[in-house]
């Protein structure tokens, strides 16, 4: 268990607390608003025993509820944020996503429910569905099974936190990236511990979003490069896209790609210096946006 604390900054308006779940660790950051914007105040992490949290879109995620609760409590204590109001990020690999073109005058969330309903392996009444506007009339819609969300919410409540927004980590990352996308073909690879998401941009607009289970090993770099090229092709551009890696294991994956002759950029959190505990928090930029 570790905590990194930056020099405290005086919060002028409010504090922000984010708690994120991954299979091996619970992470949290506290940020304060200053005249210069949101500033990272402290970072804390608490490891989880193997099998305590297993991301799944269908089945129960928290096999070790007590261990997960203890980890969250530790993070909250390290951050000095007891009884705070926390935004919660759930791990990649528990939601089903689809990029949709919306029709003017039609409620995007209702349309997403209509489109997702036939693809879900459970009744759509059990689905919590929301959308992320992606520009040019498109939305990235995602569905998460309600009992799974409730598992995480129960842990947050048990730790005395007031739950604020609850989001999926890859969507939170993407929300921050949508504002920074460049003009050329780019593929963002958002790495969670259990799954990864590929977001292909062309001319600054999100064209493709796909999720894949991770299979760490010597061949993962090759598979990721192939999936990124396929995403760029689906986005309508066959040229080799710029690969941007962020999240769990981004540094190692970039090294593996380089050894295979493929350049990749690792997107670092927008803080300087980057605390070691925050180096691979893909969602940190979004938390401080």
């Amino acid at each position, binding site marked *: 268990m570790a905590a990194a604390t930056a020099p405290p900054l005086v919060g002028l308006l409010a504090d922000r607390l984010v708690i994120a779940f991954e299979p091996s660790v619970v992470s949290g950051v506290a940020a304060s608003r200053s005249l210069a914007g949101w500033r990272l105040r402290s970072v804390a992490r608490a490891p989880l025993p193997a099998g305590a949290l297993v991301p799944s879109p269908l089945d129960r995620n928290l096999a070790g509820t007590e261990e997960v609760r203890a980890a969250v409590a530790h993070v909250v204590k390290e951050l000095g944020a007891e009884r705070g109001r926390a935004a919660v990020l759930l791990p990649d690999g528990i939601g089903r996503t689809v990029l949709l073109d919306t029709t003017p005058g039609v409620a995007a969330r209702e349309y997403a429910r209509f489109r997702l309903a036939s693809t879900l392996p459970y009744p759509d009444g059990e689905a*919590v569905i929301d959308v*992320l*506007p992606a520009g040019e009339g498109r939305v990235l819609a995602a569905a998460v099974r*309600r009992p799974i*969300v409730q598992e995480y919410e129960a842990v947050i409540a048990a730790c005395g936190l007031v739950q604020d*927004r*609850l*989001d999926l980590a890859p969507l939170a990352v993407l929300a921050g990236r949508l504002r920074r996308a460049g003009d050329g073909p780019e593929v963002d690879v958002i790495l969670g511990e259990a799954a990864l998401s590929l977001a292909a941009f062309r001319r600054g607009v999100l064209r493709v979003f796909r999720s894949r289970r991770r299979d760490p090993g010597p061949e993962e770099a090759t598979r990721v490069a192939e999936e990124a090229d396929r995403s760029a092709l689906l986005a309508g551009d066959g040229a080799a896209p710029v690969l941007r890696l962020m999240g769990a294991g981004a540094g190692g994956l970039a090294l593996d790609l380089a050894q295979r002759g493929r350049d990749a950029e690792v997107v670092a959190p927008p803080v300087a210096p980057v605390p070691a505990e925050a180096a691979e928090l893909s969602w940190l930029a979004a938390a401080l946006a």
Partner: protein
Amino acid sequence: MTRPPDFSTRPRRTPASPGDLLLFAAALAALALSAHVAWSAWTAARTARVEAAIARREAQGAGEASRGLLAGDASTSGLAVRALLTAESPPPRVLAALEPLLPPDVRLARVSMRYGARIDLEIQVAARRGVAYDEFVRRIGGSRSFAEVVPETEARDGEVRATIRAIYVGVAGS
């Protein structure tokens, strides 16, 4: 502004529409206005209470002062009584007491009031018919606002012109 996704299972709050915001602003304005009106009314009521208390004290003081003056020497008591009578029975009130006693054919030609230890009246009336004049005399004689009614000069040449003396005793009604 784009709303970030929220997959919480708690009930969602519907975002306020511009119409909702407009209604909310109108409600706030109405609340502020009613608060202002209530505050003004409360302030006015408080001022009125204070003024009433002051007037009550002044009246009480004036009563005590007049009683003191009445109990004093004769040279000052006349003045005091006159002041008291003028304050309590001003000429408009005396005239107002006379008005309902006048039959349709009788009008007041002149009324002289002399404020002293009492209010002496000299009432000159003109009546088209003698019967009407007699009715006026009967009415003022029976009125509880007037006493010591004495008809004096009287000229009957077609219409009646007459002078009546009386004192005003200030009893309400007639």
